[in-house]
Structures are given as structure tokens and as C-alpha cells.
């Protein structure tokens, strides 16, 4: 689905190389996980793929359906099917959560040449999907993420993912700030979206999220590169021995 080749990225503002040649092929129907120590470049990878400003791609491509998404605006990437669940979802005072989601859904439908959803149809859809994630009517009415707990914010991310039905889902440390119950709920939401036509890239520090969202492939990232890849057992090894041994082996 998404093929990342030789991706080099530096910070725009300073001369600091963050990604130093990432190669990754994410197939439809598969869940790939990226683990790695702090500062290895995991979150940068997610930001660069979704089009956040402040990064400069110095080399490489990320090709989705034959097009290099790195040359697209963030909204074009979204319409093409890329979705990033933020590590820190942004609070937007004054914009109702429902208005936000309906505007987003319809903007994407419009960009893809599909008819927009009317408010009644939208409401029905969002209520059904919100119920699965135990998101109540009040959370839908409130301004986007304002006053939400950490768990509510992450559930709200998954709700957006469910509403937008992207093909390439990137989850950036979705487990951070979640207690065990909240993590299970979020994982259920993600698992419900697993589909032969959809690819997932799950970025996490810890193995525990991967107990709930079972990955097909695990990659270890360090110093801006994927240093090793394997099956789910690789995550268990990290949990047991930490990154140090693993990185030493692959140095």
C-alpha cells in the first residue's frame, strides 16, 4: 500500500538529520509496528508522512497508489487515505467536535468526488460509531478535545479514524497517557477497523499496546533507521531485554 524508500529527513530550522534512510513497505491488511528508544525518529516519521511543517525531506519517497505523498498538502494526503492518530491531539476551543468531524468527512468526500453527507445521515453514522467507543453525546458536542481526559482524546482520535475510513492508518504512541482499561478500549476500536484493504503503522515505546493490537511485523528503529525487523516475538524481546542488547547486536 505505502512504500517508503530511502527516506532522509532533517529539521527545517536547524541542520539536524532525523531520518537517515528509512525503507518500509506497508501492505494492505497488515499491521506493522515500529518500536525504538526515545529520539530514534519514530514520531518524526509519522509527522513527515502526514505533512506537518518544520521538516525537510532531503532524499527518498513515500509512494501511495503510484504517487509520492511527500509532495502533497496535508489535506490531499488525508483525501488519499492517510490518517495520523496524534500522540497529543490538539485542543481547538470554539469548534464543536461534531462540526469538526462533519466538515472533515465532507471535505474528504468532496475531494474524492463523492456526494457530501447530509446532517441527518452524518448524525446517525457518528452516533453509532461513537457508541462503540463509549463516546457520549456530550463529548460530541464539546469543542474539539477541550477538557477531554487523556483517554477521551485518544478515543476521539479513533472515532475520527472510524468516520474517515482511511486506508493507511498511522498511530503515534496511541498508548501514551492511557490506563489499561482505556488502552483496551482504544485497541478494540482499532481492531474493529482491521480490514484486508487497510494498512496500519503502529508507533509505540512499549510492547503492552501490541498485546492488544497484534502486529504482523515489528520493526526496531534507532538513530533514524530501521535496524531490524521481525515477527511479534521481536516486541517481546524488547520488553524482556530492552533496546540496548538488540541495538548492540545490530550495530
Amino acid at each position, binding site marked *: 500500500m505505502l512504500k517508503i524508500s530511502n527516506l532522509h529527513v532533517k529539521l527545517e530550522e536547524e541542520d539536524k538529520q532525523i531520518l537517515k534512510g528509512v525503507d518500509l513497505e506497508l501492505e494492505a491488511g497488515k499491521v506493522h509496528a515500529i518500536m525504538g528508544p526515545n529520539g530514534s525518529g519514530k514520531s518524526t516519521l509519522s509527522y513527515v508522512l*502526514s*505533512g*506537518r*511543517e518544520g521538516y525537510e525531506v532531503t532524499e527518498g519517497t513515500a509512494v501511495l497508489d503510484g504517487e509520492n505523498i511527500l509532495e502533497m*498538502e*496535508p*489535506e490531499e*494526503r*488525508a*483525501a488519499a487515505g492517510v*490518517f*495520523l492518530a*496524534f500522540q497529543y*491531539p*490538539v485542543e*481547538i*476551543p*470554539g*469548534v464543536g467536535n461534531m*462540526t*469538526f468531524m462533519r*466538515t*472533515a*468527512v465532507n*471535505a*474528504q468526500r468532496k*475531494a474524492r468526488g463523492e456526494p457530501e453527507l447530509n446532517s441527518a445521515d452524518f448524525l446517525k453514522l457518528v452516533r453509532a460509531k461513537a457508541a462503540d467507543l463509549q463516546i457520549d453525546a456530550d463529548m460530541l458536542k464539546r*469543542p474539539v478535545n477541550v477538557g477531554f481526559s487523556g483517554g477521551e482524546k485518544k478515543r476521539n482520535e479513533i472515532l*475520527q479514524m472510524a468516520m*474517515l475510513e482511511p486506508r493507511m492508518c498511522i498511530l503515534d504512541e496511541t498508548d501514551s497517557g492511557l490506563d489499561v482499561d482505556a488502552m483496551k478500549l482504544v485497541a478494540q476500536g482499532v481492531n474493529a477497523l482491521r480490514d484486508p484493504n487497510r494498512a496500519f503503522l503502529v508507533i509505540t515505546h512499549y510492547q503492552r499496546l501490541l498485546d492488544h493490537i497484534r502486529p504482523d511485523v515489528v520493526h526496531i528503529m534507532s538513530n533514524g533507521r530501521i535496524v531490524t525487523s521481525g515477527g511479534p516475538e521481536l516486541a517481546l524481546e524488547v520488553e524482556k531485554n530492552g533496546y540496548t542488547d538488540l541495538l548492540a547486536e545490530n550495530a
Partner: protein
Amino acid sequence: MALAKPTQDATDARLDALSIPQDAGWSLAARQEALGRLKLMGMPHRRDEYWRFTNPADFNAVAPVAAPPMDVSDEKPLYEGMEQLRIVFVDGVFDPEASDDLAGEGIEIARLAEAGRADIHWARDLYGLLEARGQSPVDRPLCALNTAFATDGVLIRVTGKVSRPVSIVYRHENATSDAILHHVVQLTEGAELTLLETGCVAARANTVLETDVADHATFHHVRSQGRNHDRRAATAGFARLGRQSTYKSFTLTANGAMTRNEHVVEFTGDDATAHVAAAAIGDGADDPFHNDDTVFITHNAKNCESRQVFKKVLKNGAVGVFQGKILVKKDAQKTDGYQISQALLLDDDSQFLAKPELEIYADDVACSHGSTTGAIDEEALFYLRSRGMPKARAEDLLVLAFLAETLEEIDDEDIAAALNERLAAWLDRHAS
């Protein structure tokens, strides 16, 4: 004291071109007094303290700058379907055909242009009175000019709780129209009224609204100044508030080459409330945009609450000005005064000039003020775009969110919703 020569010259030239209406009737004395005041102060000048940020040249000029009318026929009328008593002015001229009967229960409505019919009228004691009171400590020559030379206006006396809003609708059809309108509203004890003002008055307009709110009376004022680009408007609202009375005024402005909206509010009775709010959006790309809110609130009674909420969204060299003052006199204990002015600058070319002032002589008051100028929140913008919203749409959503706090100042939810919808439609049109 003699006026400085440039001021004297400007005043002479302006006065030469104006004359007090011949059939001024009961309003004649007040007009002559106002003319006397104007001659003493002279027309405004850039050197005047309260005109430092706004050039009064367009208001001083003998002839108005031409402003082609805007075709707004594709816009559905604001407050459509809402019960209202409509009074229509086209380029400042009353349109009887388009207006409703000027009558209703608990309300008397007359027109200033018909003052010549009588020597005695309830408005005689009020016309120009609050304007004159508002001339101290700050000169407001445009308002004295208005009282002297207004050609028409609506005189409303409210004696009951009137549920149907009075809706003054302005239409601008003539590119060189120059309108001077003076409205007077008197609310007797316990009376209630909502006054709506909608649309662009004229190519150049000078409007004054005097509102006398007696004890326990309530006045709501909601104004939308239209979205015409080239028009010049100087407006002033003077209000005097009695005991336990309520006065709330909201203004929405889009575009407009020059806007000066003044509010002069005086508390004379204890335990009263005054809220003044405005939202303005302007893009200076094709036409200039200068938007000035100048507010003066005098607390001259105990335990009154005043609140000022002003927000402006500025783009492509647009200029926003806010001058807001809270004056708390010695005996106005337990005053609660609040003032906030905020600008959202969508680029580096636009500017916001703010001058908040507090002058407090009482020792037991709670007064606060704040002013902020900021850019759009890039994090929020990226978040919205990452969900598929085009940049312009995402910006609009954030602009509406920024202005939402001012619309919350409107008590009537239907009116607030209508204005919010209008604002969203304007933004939508602009983005496409």
C-alpha cells in the same frame, strides 16, 4: 479658544455644505445647540487623542468617496421568518413601501423627518441630550454634526415589554449617497425592546443612536453592518442606564473601507448591566479595511457591571483599532468592569492598535482589561488539515471559533445563530 487653522478651515468647508432641515419643528433648538458645540470643537483631526489611529479625512470631506453598491440579492435576508417590525431606509431615505406600519403594542414610533409637524413631542427633551452629555470629557464632533444635520431617523418610545423586535433595514443603492441618521430610543420603567439594525446605510454614513434606559428596563441591540467594501461609516451609540436596567449591544462588521463605531455608556442608576461587543472581519487585499471601535463607559452609580468584548480578524494589510475606556467615578463602589480586545492577524501585513484605559476613583471595585494580538494556531491548523480540510476551510473554522465568544454575548439564541450562519456564509464565499 480659537481653533487651529486647519481645523477651522475643515469645519468651515464642511458646514458650508450642510444646512439644518427647514422643517425641523421641535428638534430645531437641539440642532442649533449641537451646531454651536460643533463650531467650538471643530471637525476631528489626526492630532486629536481619540483620532490618532484613525484618519477622519473621509468623514471631514465635503463630498463622500464613491462606493459602488454591492449586489446582495443572492443573500437570504437576515432573520428571515422571524417576527419583526421592519423599517427600511434606502441610502438614508425612508422607504414607506418596504416598511411595516410604524405601530405596535407598548411602543410608539415616529420619524425625525416629521418633526416639523409638531412643536411638542416626547423626543424633544431627549433628542441630542445623551449626545451632548457624551461630549465630555472626550469631544465627539461627528456626533454633534449628526444631531445638527440629521435628515431622518427613528424615534421609538417603549412603554411595555415588546417581544417583536424593531428591525431597521438599510439598503445602499447609490454610489455617492451620504446619509446622516439620528435614532432615539426611550425605554420607560420596566420596558423591554430588541432593536436590530442590518445592512450598509450608504456610501458614507453618519449615524447616532441615543438610548435612554429607565429603571428596570432592558434594551438589546444587534447590528450587522453588511459586507460592502468601499463604504465609510461613523456610528455612535449613546446610552444612559437607570437602576437595575440592562443594555446589550452587539455589532458584526465585514469589510468596509472605513468604520468608526463609538459607544458611550453612562450608568446613572445602581445595579445596572451594560455589555458591548463586536466582531469584525476584514481583508485588505482588494480594498482598504480600517475598523475602529471606540468605547467609553462611565460608572457613576454603585454595583454596576460593564463588559466589553471586541474581536477582529485581519488579513492583507487590514487595520483594526480598539480604544476602550472604563471610568469609575468616586462613588461608584462595587463596580465590576471588564474589557477584552483581541485580534487574529492572518498575515504579517495587518495590524491591530489597541488602547485600553482604566480610570478609577472609587476604592472598592473589580476592574480588569486585556488585549491580545495573535496569529492563527499552526498546530490547530495542521490538525484540521490532516483530517482533510483544505487550508482555507480550516482557517475559516478557526476564524469562526475565534469570533464565537463575541456572538455568545447575544442573549437571543435565534439571533446569534442567524448571525453565525451569515458569518459562515460570508467566509465560505470568500474562500471559494
